[in-house]
C-alpha cells in the first residue's frame, strides 16, 4: 500500500506538505488544521516498523543528535554510514534478551602471564633480599638496552623490561653462575628469546653420565651383529662395503662450542627451555642449509643434507655459529690467564681467559676508526665442527682391543690421514676477519656525530646481519636481533646428492666386452677348424699306432 508520496490530487494525503495547495486552503485558514497536519506527520513518523520495532522519528532524532554531538566534517558525505551506525548500536541493546558471554580473548591470558612476571614469589624472606643485592648473575638488561638504543638497535623498553624479569625468574630456578641476554631470533609462528648462561661448576654432571651410558650400549650391539654376519657370509647377498665416515664426538659441556648453555623461550612469561648441547655433525650440516625457524622447538627440519635433529638442535647450531663469528670485546679487556706449564699446549690453543684488572678503555674515536681495537672472545669453529681439532681415526684403548679380529680386513681401507685443522686463536683482532667480496666483515660507526663526547662505538656485522656490539668506556656488550642466517651475496645453492655408490668393484670378470664383429667370427671359425683338423689327424695317427701296438702284443 502506498504510504508515501507523490500524492495524486484525488488522494487524501495530497497537499499536506505544500503550502497553498492544501484541500482547505482556499477556505478560511484554520490554524488548527496546520497543527493537525503537523500532528499527522509526526504520528506517521512515530509509527513503529513491523520488522525492526524502530520508528523513523526516534531514528532521525538519534542521528541528528549524534551528528550534532560529534560534528564530523562533510557530514553529508557519510550520512548513510552514520545512519547505519546508529541502527547498529540500537540493535545491540534492544533485541538480545540473552546476555553475551564475556568474550575471553587470548590476549587476556597472555596479559595474565606477563603480569605474573611482576609478582614477587611468595617464599622470599629477608635473607634472599640480601643475597640479591650482592653479587647476582642477573645482567643489567636495561642498561645494555640503553646503550644499544643510542645506536637505534633494540627492542622497545616494555619488552626489554619483561625480558629482564624473565631472566630473573630463570636465575631463581636454575643454579646459574653467569647469565647474559644473548638476543632474539625471529621465526615464522613465534620468536625466540635466548639467554646465554654458565652453570656453577659441578652442576651439570648428571646429564653427561646418561649420555655416556647410551653410547656404550650402542657399541656393544654393533660388535655382536658383526660376528653373526661373518658366520653367514656364504648365504647372504653381498654385504655392503659402505663404511660411514667416523662420527666426530661432540665437545664436552663447558668447553669449545658447548662452553655456554642456552635457554630459550618464545615470549617473556613463558617457561624457559634448555637447548641440548651441539654436536659437530649438526654444525657441519647447519652450514649447508638455510631454513627459517618456525618457533616451535620440536618442529622437524626438512632439508638436504638431512639435518640430524629437530629445530632445537638447528637453533643451537646457529647460535653456536653466530657466537663464534660475532662475539667480540675491546682489546685488552680480556687477557690470557698465566699458566705455569705452558708446554702442555694442546693443538687447540688456549681456550680460557680472564678479565684484565688493568684494562684502560680506549676512546670512542679509536674504537670506531680501526677494527684492530676489537678482538673475538669466543673460539672459532673449525671445518670439522669443533673448536679443538680431534683426529677421528685415532682409536682409544677400548676400541683397539675389540678390533683385533677385524684388523685383517682393514689395512687397505684406511682413508688418507686427515690434516689437522687450525683456526685463528682466541683473542684475534677483527682486522683479521675476511670480508665478503669487497665488503669488510664489520661496519663501525659512532652512535652520534653531533655529541662526540658521549657517543657510543657501535659495530655491525656484515657476515651475520643482525649481530651488533657496542663499547663505551669500560662497558661493552654483544647482541643479536635477526632471523639467524649468514649473509651471502650469492644465492643459496643446496648441496647435490652424492654420486651413486658402486655396487661391485669393476674388474675384467664382470665388465662387458664388445661382441665380436663378423670378420672376427669368421677368422675365429677358420682358426678353430684348422685346429680341429690337425687334432683329428693326430688322433688317427694315435689310433693307428694303438692298433699296431695291440697287434704286436699278440
Amino acid at each position, binding site marked *: 500500500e502506498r504510504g508515501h508520496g507523490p500524492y495524486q490530487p484525488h488522494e487524501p494525503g495530497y497537499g499536506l506538505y505544500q503550502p497553498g495547495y492544501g484541500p482547505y486552503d482556499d477556505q478560511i485558514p484554520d490554524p488548527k488544521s496546520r497543527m493537525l497536519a503537523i500532528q499527522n506527520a509526526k504520528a506517521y513518523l512515530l509509527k513503529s516498523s513491523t520488522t525492526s520495532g524502530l520508528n523513523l522519528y526516534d531514528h532521525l532524532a538519534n542521528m541528528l543528535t549524534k551528528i550534532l554531538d560529534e560534528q*564530523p566534517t562533510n557530514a553529508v558525505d*557519510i550520512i548513510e*554510514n552514520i545512519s547505519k551506525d546508529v541502527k547498529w548500536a540500537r540493535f545491540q541493546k534492544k533485541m538480545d534478551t540473552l546476555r553475551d558471554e564475556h568474550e575471553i*580473548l*587470548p*590476549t587476556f591470558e*597472555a*596479559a595474565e*602471564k*606477563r603480569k605474573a612476571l611482576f609478582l614477587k614469589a611468595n617464599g622470599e624472606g629477608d635473607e634472599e633480599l640480601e643475597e640479591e643485592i650482592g653479587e647476582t648473575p642477573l645482567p643489567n638488561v636495561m642498561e645494555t638496552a640503553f646503550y644499544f*638504543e*643510542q*645506536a*637505534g*638497535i*633494540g*627492542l*622497545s*623498553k*616494555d*619488552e626489554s623490561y619483561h625480558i629482564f624479569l624473565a631472566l630473573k625468574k630463570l636465575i631463581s630456578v636454575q643454579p646459574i653462575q653467569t647469565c647474559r641476554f644473548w*638476543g*632474539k631470533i*625471529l*621465526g*615464522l*609462528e*613465534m*620468536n625466540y628469546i635466548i639467554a646465554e648462561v654458565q652453570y656453577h661448576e659441578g652442576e651439570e654432571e648428571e646429564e653427561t653420565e646418561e649420555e655416556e651410558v647410551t653410547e656404550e650400549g650402542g657399541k656393544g650391539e654393533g660388535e655382536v651383529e658383526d660376528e653373526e654376519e661373518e658366520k653367514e657370509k656364504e648365504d647372504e647377498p653381498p654385504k655392503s662395503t659402505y663404511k660411514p665416515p667416523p662420527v666426530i664426538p661432540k665437545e664436552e659441556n663447558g668447553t669449545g662450542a658447548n662452553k655456554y648453555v642456552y635457554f630459550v623461550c618464545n*615470549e617473556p612469561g613463558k617457561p624457559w627451555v634448555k637447548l641440548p648441547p651441539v654436536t659437530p655433525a649438526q654444525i657441519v650440516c647447519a652450514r649447508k642449509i*638455510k*631454513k*627459517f625457524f618456525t618457533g616451535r622447538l620440536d618442529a622437524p627440519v626438512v632439508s638436504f643434507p638431512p639435518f640430524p635433529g629437530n629445530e632445537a638442535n638447528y637453533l643451537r647450531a646457529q647460535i653456536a655459529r653466530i657466537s663464534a663469528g660475532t662475539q667480540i670485546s675491546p682489546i685488552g679487556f680480556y687477557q690470557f690467564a698465566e699458566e705455569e706449564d705452558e708446554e702442555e699446549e694442546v693443538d687447540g690453543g688456549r681456550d680460557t681467559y680472564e678479565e684484565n684488572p688493568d684494562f684502560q678503555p680506549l676512546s670512542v674515536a679509536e674504537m670506531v676508526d680501526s677494527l684492530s681495537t676489537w678482538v673475538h672472545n669466543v673460539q672459532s669453529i673449525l671445518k670439522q665442527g669443533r673448536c679443538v681439532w680431534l683426529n677421528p681415526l685415532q682409536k682409544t684403548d677400548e676400541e683397539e682391543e675389540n678390533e683385533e679380529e677385524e684388523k685383517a680386513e682393514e689395512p687397505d681401507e684406511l682413508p688418507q690421514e686427515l690434516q689437522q685443522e687450525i683456526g685463528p686463536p682466541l683473542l684475534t683482532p677483527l682486522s683479521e676477519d675476511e670480508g665478503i*667480496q669487497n*665488503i*669488510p666483515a664489520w*661496519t663501525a660507526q659512532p*652512535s*652520534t*656525530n*653531533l655529541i662526540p663526547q658521549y657517543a657510543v662505538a657501535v659495530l*655491525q656485522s*656484515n657476515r651475520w*646481519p*643482525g649481530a651488533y656490539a657496542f663499547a663505551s668506556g669500560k662497558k661493552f656488550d654483544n647482541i643479536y*636481533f*635477526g*632471523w639467524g*642466517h649468514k*649473509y651471502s*651475496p*650469492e*644465492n*643459496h645453492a*643446496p648441496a647435490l646428492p652424492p654420486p651413486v655408490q658402486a655396487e661391485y668393484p669393476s674388474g675384467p670378470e664382470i665388465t662387458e666386452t664388445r661382441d665380436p664383429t663378423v670378420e672376427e667370427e669368421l677368422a675365429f671359425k677358420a682358426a678353430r677348424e684348422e685346429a680341429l683338423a690337425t687334432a683329428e689327424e693326430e688322433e688317427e695317427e694315435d689310433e693307428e699306432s694303438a692298433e699296431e701296438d695291440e697287434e704286436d702284443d699278440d
Partner: protein
Amino acid sequence: MEASSLPAALELVSGGGAGLSPEKRAVLGSSLLLLQRDYRFERVWFWGCIQGVCGAYYIAEGLGPDRAAPRSRLYSLNCVEWNLLPPVTEEMVTQAGRLKGRFQGDPSFEYEYTERNAEDAERLFEDGKEPMIKEEARLVATIEQIDRAVGIIPRGAFVKTPLGSVSENRNFEGLSLMEAKRLSSYFHFTEPVNLKNKTLLEKADLDPSTDFLDSLEHDIPQGSWTVQLEKGGTVVVLRSLLWLGLTFYHVPMTKQYGYVYFGNGEKNLDLPFML
C-alpha cells in the same frame, strides 16, 4: 608509517630489533614536518632505512591528494637534510634488479654491471652510454620494488571514490582480532594485478569502494608473510620474508597501522629453500 604517529609506531615495530636512535627520532619529528611544508605534501610517510656498508639511507615518501598516485620519494643520510629522488622508470627497475650485493652508503657510487646478453651490450654501446648505474637510481628502484611487492594496508583503510582517486576511509575503525589474523584482510597498496582474475562469485561479494586492490592471500610463494601477535596479543605484526626487514603493524579495533622497512635493501631470493 605516518610521520605524525612515528613515536608510537616505532615502539610497536621494534620487535625485530631494528629501530631509530633517540637522536634520529627527535630530528625526524621536525624535519618531516618541514618536508610537508616545503613540498606541499598532504601526507608524509616515513618509509624506513636501508643499511649500506658505510652509511644508511633514511627514506621518506610524500603523498598528494590521490593516495594511489606515484609518490615522491626523498632520502637523507642524517635525517636532517632531504634530497628528492628522481621518479622511477621501468628501465631503472630492470637494471637495478640485476645488481647484487649491498648498498654502499654513498649516493654517487656507480655500479658497473656486466651484460649477460651480448645484444644488450652492443645496443648500449651504440647509444654511447656506458653500462653504469648510480646508487641513487638503484635506491629509488629498490624502494619502488619493495612498495610494489610488499607495501600493504588493512582492508577498508582506503576507499576509492567514483572519480577514481583514492583517499583514506574516515569510517575505518580497525580490523577485529579475528580479521587481523587472516591474510585476506590486507591489501597490496599498488596497482592490482589479480583482481580481474577472480571468479564472478567472488566479485559479487566485493565492495568496489574498498576492495579495489590485491589481497595477500594469493602471494607466491605461500607462506611468504609471517603473522604474529606481539606485546601479549595486542598488536598484529606482519613481516615479509621476501624482503627481509619489512614490518607492518596494526592494533586491532583502532586506526593505528603502518609499515616500515629496516634492512639491507636486498631481495631474499633463497625464500623457497628456506620455508
